[in-house]
């Protein structure tokens, strides 16, 4: 079976992302260090493995975020993110005038 068929996306890493960032992250916009494109974290490609999560840029395949759990430690390599824009709570967005 092709690896491509098996891949998931940042949505599947939502729980792990909450552990690292202490807030919901799938709607955050991440700028890829490799190619500069900006995407919601939920739209990054996930190649999961037993010990953790690797999120890759759909445009250039570079690893954007790696989270590995080892006993007693959570190891994070966020060097693939050059910039991150994290939205506020949905309530705040509505108050700021998002169109209904």
């Amino acid at each position, binding site marked *: *079976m092709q690896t*491509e*068929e*098996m*891949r*998931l*996306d*940042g*949505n*599947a890493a*939502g*729980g792990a992302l*909450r*552990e690292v960032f*202490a*807030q*919901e*992250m*799938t*709607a*955050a916009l991440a700028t890829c260090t490799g190619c500069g494109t900006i995407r*919601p*974290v*939920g*739209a990054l490609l996930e190649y999961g493995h037993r010990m953790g999560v690797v999120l890759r840029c759909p445009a250039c395949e570079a690893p954007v975020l790696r989270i590995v759990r080892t006993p007693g430690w959570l190891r994070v390599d966020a060097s693939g993110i050059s910039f991150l824009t994290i*939205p506020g*709570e*949905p309530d705040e967005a*509505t108050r700021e005038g*998002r*169109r*209904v």
Partner: protein
Amino acid sequence: MPPQLAWRVATVLDVHDETPRARTLVLEVSPWPGHRPGQHVDVRLVAEDGYQAQRSYSIASTPEEATVALTVERLEDGEVSPYLCDVLRAGDGLELRGPIGGYFVWTLDQGGPLLLVGGGSGIVPLMAMLRHHARADAAVRARLPVRLIYSARSQDVVIYREELERLDHRPEVEVTLTLTREAPTSWSGYRRRIDREILDAVSWPPSEMPQAFVCGPTALVESMATLLVELGHDPACVRTERFGPTG
């Protein structure tokens, strides 16, 4: 929103089969902060030897309900789904954490029209969105029409079939089913994978600027998302959730 996502034990209130392969679990999760349609929970099973298996399952119920429903499809060689579909029963506990998700979510205030494209068990989070929409009052629903395109292998594995037929009768909802492997001789609908021709016929044109949500097997999600963007939809309005090779 509480910063830490704690594992806690939910109580199974009821289980019922949707199809020969899919079962809905109705859970009491207390306390539950509420959720948004499209979100999921992580479920964890721990064996006697300490081995842990964890999977994510989309929430099928709407935020307006007091209980939380998950619809789980049994995967033949699954580590978790056979237990959830065959063994778990009312009164049992189930360890989970959630709700999780902020990208693949839709609530009424995000507007529409709404385009939902699903394959296999990908219908589950889309159904939460559709059920949430169905609870709005008529004036809101009229301003916010929904078109759902659902691809399943055969009629007997169409999840929520009767409910979808009922919702399809509403003027603001259109449900298109396509059966990809086998169909009854009486079937007058589509008999192939969703393609450009089907999208042209039954989805929203880009000029309507729909909010699109695509969920199901990875191959379907990627081909549909690519196609929608090729047809002219704004990529920022096409949100995807991949379920992996099966579903």
